[in-house]
C-alpha cells in the first residue's frame, strides 16, 4: 500500500508523525519503507536518528533518481544505521524498516514525463517488496504532490492502493488551511481530478491527522483553573464545529496526536522506553501513534462516512 503524507504548512508534524507510523508498523511486523520526498528540506533522517544522512545525502538520493542521475536511489536499513540506543537492537518479530533519503542539495524541480515514468517504476517495485510504502511529501502544493497525483493516476498503478494523510495542527488557521489544501480550488482533490482521478474515490482515500492536539479533558489541561478550563472547552467545541463545516471533521479524521513536549522539542520516535521506563512521554502519545498505525490499513476507518 502507498501512503502519501502531505500538509499545507510546515510544522504540522508531518515527518515526525509519518516516521512514527512507519516505526510502529515495522514493530508490528510489516516491511515498511519511508521515502523522503520533502525535496525542500529532507529531515526524516533526523527523526530516525541516522546522522550520516542528516539533511539528505550528497548524491544518489531520491532527487537524483527521479531526475535520471542515478539508476537506483540509495536505501538505508534504519535498524542497522540508526544511532538511537533503543532502535539499534532490532526487536524480534519486527519487519524491515528502510529509509530512502533525499539529496542534500536537491531542492524542488519540475515534473517531466521522464520523472513520472521513473516514479511509476519505483512505486511498483517498492509496492511488491514492502507492505507499506510511506511517502513524505514537501509542504504545500509542491512538485512532489503533483508528481504523486500524476503517478497514481496512471493506469500502471491501478490496483495499487494509495491513501493520503493530510497533516494539520489543531488550530483555526490550520483547520482552514488543511481544508483548502484538500478541497479548495487549487487543492489535492481538484488537482487529482484534473489528472484523471475519480473524485469520489480520491476523496475516499483522503484522511486528516491532527497534531499537537490539546485535549481539555485529559491532564494536564483538565487540571487548569476552572475559568481557563471553561474557555478551552468552548474553544475546542468551536474548533470541532469549524472542522465539521469544512469537511475536516471526525468522519474525515484518521487520528489525532496529543500535544507532547518530547515531540515539540525533539522530533523523535516515541518508543515504549520513553513512556514506561524514562517516562518522558505520555502514554496517550504512544497510543495515538499505535492507533494511527493500525488504522492505516483498517478498512473500517476508511469507509465512506
Amino acid at each position, binding site marked *: 500500500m502507498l501512503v502519501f503524507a502531505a500538509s499545507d504548512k510546515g510544522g504540522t508534524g508531518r515527518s515526525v508523525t509519518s516516521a512514527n507510523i512507519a516505526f510502529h508498523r515495522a514493530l508490528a511486523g510489516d516491511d515498511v519503507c519511508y521515502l523522503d520526498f520533502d525535496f525542500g528540506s529532507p529531515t526524516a533522517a533526523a527523526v530516525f536518528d541516522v546522522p550520516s544522512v542528516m539533511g539528505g545525502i550528497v548524491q544518489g538520493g531520491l532527487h537524483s533518481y527521479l531526475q535520471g542521475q542515478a539508476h537506483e536511489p540509495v536505501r538505508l536499513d534504519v535498524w542497522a544505521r540508526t544511532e538511537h540506543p533503543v532502535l539499534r537492537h532490532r526487536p524480534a518479530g519486527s519487519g524491515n524498516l528502510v529509509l530512502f533519503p533525499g539529496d542534500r542539495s536537491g531542492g524542488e524541480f519540475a515534473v517531466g514525463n521522464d520523472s513520472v515514468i521513473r516514479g511509476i517504476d519505483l512505486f511498483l517495485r517498492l509496492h511488491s517488496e514492502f507492505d507499506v510504502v510511506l511517502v513524505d511529501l514537501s509542504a504545500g502544493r509542491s512538485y512532489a504532490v503533483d508528481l504523486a497525483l500524476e503517478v497514481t493516476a496512471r493506469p500502471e498503478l491501478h490496483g495499487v492502493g494509495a491513501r493520503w494523510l493530510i497533516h494539520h495542527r489543531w488550530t483555526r488557521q490550520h483547520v482552514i488551511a488543511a481544508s483548502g489544501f484538500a478541497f479548495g480550488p487549487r487543492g489535492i482533490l481538484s488537482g487529482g481530478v484534473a489528472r484523471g482521478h475519480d473524485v*469520489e474515490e480520491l476523496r*475516499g482515500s483522503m484522511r486528516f491527522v491532527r497534531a499537537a492536539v490539546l485535549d481539555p479533558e485529559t491532564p494536564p489541561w483538565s487540571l487548569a483553573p476552572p475559568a481557563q478550563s471553561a474557555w478551552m472547552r468552548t474553544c475546542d467545541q468551536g474548533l470541532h464545529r469549524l472542522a465539521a463545516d469544512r469537511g475536516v471533521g*471526525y468522519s474525515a479524521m484518521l487520528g489525532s496526536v496529543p500535544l507532547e513536549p518530547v515531540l515539540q522539542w525533539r522530533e523523535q520516535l516515541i518508543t515504549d522506553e520513553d513512556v514506561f521506563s524514562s517516562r518522558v512521554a505520555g502514554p496517550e502519545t504512544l497510543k495515538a501513534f499505535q492507533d494511527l498505525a493500525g488504522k492505516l490499513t483498517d478498512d473500517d476507518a476508511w469507509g*465512506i*462516512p
Partner: protein
Amino acid sequence: MQIKPRQHLLDIWQAVSRHSFESGEWDWGEEGGLSSVADAERLLCLMYPATEIPAFRLDDPDTLQHDVQTALKDVGGPTEIPVKLVRILAEFMDTYTAEDEGPSFAGGHYFDACDPGEELTEEQRRLGVVDSFSMSITLCLATLGFLKVYRGRTRRAEVHALIEKLRAATETRLTAAMVSLLRSFTVNVFDPDDPQGRTLCDILGQGQISRRVVVERFQQRFKALRATVNERLVLGVDIADRLTDQNQLFECGWAWTLVKDSPPVETREPIGRQPAGVAWPVPYLYFTVVALDGIQDLSSERTLTLGLLTPEQQRLAEALRLRWEITQQYWSGIARFGDVWPLEDIRWRTTGQSMESAYFSLSAASILVHDLVRRRATDEDLTRTVAVMERLAEHSRISSRMTEEDTAIVLHAPGVRLALQGSGDTGPPMQWTVADFPAQLLKRSIQLCALSRNVSSHDRLLRLTERVFAHVWERRIRYGKGAGLWDDVQAVYPSAPAMERPPSWSFTERVVECMVAGHWLYNQAPLRSSELVRSASSLLSEATHLFGGEFLEPASAQDSSRSRALKSVEAGLARAREVLDQQPGTAMALVLGALAELDSLARGRRAASRGE
C-alpha cells in the same frame, strides 16, 4: 434531588443502549414488534432528545460531543450511530406497515381484557390507539428532521437509497397518523338530566350551585365556543342539531381510537384503506391530553423552519390545529369554571366513563398548563395551578408517606385502568392501563416552572420538581436486563404488586421528555428580581464613586500590587455594569468584592494617618 438534565439524559441513553444493543446490533427483544406504541416510545427515548437538544444531535458524526459518544459506545462509533438509527427506524416502519392497508398503529400488548380470564382476539390487538397516532407524529417529525441533516452528511450510495426509502415511509406514516387523529376526534352532546350531564354539573357546581344555574353559566361561558364548533367543524346532522340547542351540554376531545362511523378523510397520499372506527363517540380526558401533546409538535418552530410538512400534510395539520384550539379552550374553561375551580377538587370525575382518579385531575391540569404556555392565563391562575400540583404530589403519596391499604397505590401499580368503550364488538371488552403518573406530574411541573416568572411560585415549583424527580429517579430498575430504565415501583413502595413487563417504555419515554423539558428550563435566563437590581445599582454607584476617589491618590508604579488591585477592581466593576440587568445577584457579588478591595486600601491609609 437536583435535576441535571444532561447528565441524567446521558445515563438514560447509556442504559437504553446497553439494554437494546446486543454487541452493536439493535435487538427488538421478545416484546418488539408487538405494540407500535411501545416500539415508538423506545425509539423516541433516543430520537426525542436528539431532535430537541442541539448537544444531543446524532445526525452529524463530526459534531458529536465527547460525553454523548461515551454514553453511546455500545451502539458504535460516531459514524456508525446515524447509519444504525436509519436501519432501526426503517425496520420499525416496515414492521408497522401492513401489505395493502398502509401504516398500522396497533396497540398490541398494551391492550388487556377487562376480565383477566379472557383472551383478546388478534383483530382487537391490531386496533389502532390514539397513543400510537400521537407518538407517531412526534417520531415521524423527529425522523424527517434527522434524515434531512444526515442526508447531507453521508456520501454512501447505499445509505442514500435507504434514507430515501425511509423518508417516503415516514411521510406516509405521518399522513396516516394525522388522518387517524382527525377521525378519533369527537364532540359529544348530552342533556343535563342524562347521567353524563349530571356528572358534569356536579363537577362544575361542586354541590354548591344548583344544576339550573350551572347550565345557565355553562351556556354563557361556552356560547362562543359552541358557535365555533358548529360553524367550523363538519359534524353529523344529528349532533349539529342538538348542539344548536343551548340547553344541551357538550364536551369535545379524543376517543381512544377511530370513532365509529367516522367518515374517511379525503387525501391524495397513499395511506391505504382507512379502517372503520369502533370507539364510541365519547372523549377521554387521558387520550385528549395525549393527542394535544402530539399535535403541538406539528406547529413547532422546528417543524416550520425545517419545512417538514408537505402541502397536503399542512392542510391536515390545520384541521388538527383547529380541533386542538377548540379542545384546549374547552377544557381550560371547564377546569377553571366558577370561583372555586373544579380542578382544585382533586380526584376529578370523568363524565364519559364515570371514573374518579387523581390521574384525571393531572390530565385536566396538563391542559391548563398548555393554556398557560400560551399566556392566555394570568399569574394568579399559575399560582393556583402550582397549589394543585403540590396537592397532586401529596395525594399520590409522592411527597408524603404511603399508608397501609392506601388507595393511592393504584396510581403507581398497577395503574389507572380505562375501559375502552366500543372495544367489545369483536371480542371481550378491552382496557388500557396508565401507570406513568409521577413522570407526567414531573413533566408538567417542569413545564410550569419554565413558565413562571414569579420568584415565589418558581421556587415552590423547583422544590416540587426536585421532590418528584428524586422519587422518579429512585424508581429505576437496579439489576438485570433493563437496569437504569423504569419502572421498579417496589423500590419506593415495597408493598406494591410487582410489575409485569420490565422495562416500561412508556414510563422511560416520559422521563426522557421530562429531561428535555428540564434542559429548556435551565436554558432560560434566570429570574431577575427588581429589588436586587435596585440594590445592585446603588452598590455599583457607591463603588464607582470610591474607585474614582482612589485616583486622587498619587499614582503607583505600573506593576505594583496596588495598581494591579485597582485594575482588577476596574474589570470587576465593568463586568458588574454589563450583567446588572440580567443577573443582579452576580453584579452584586462582583461589586461587593470590589468594595472590600477598595476599603482595604482606605484602611491602610487611615492607619498610617493615625501615626502622624
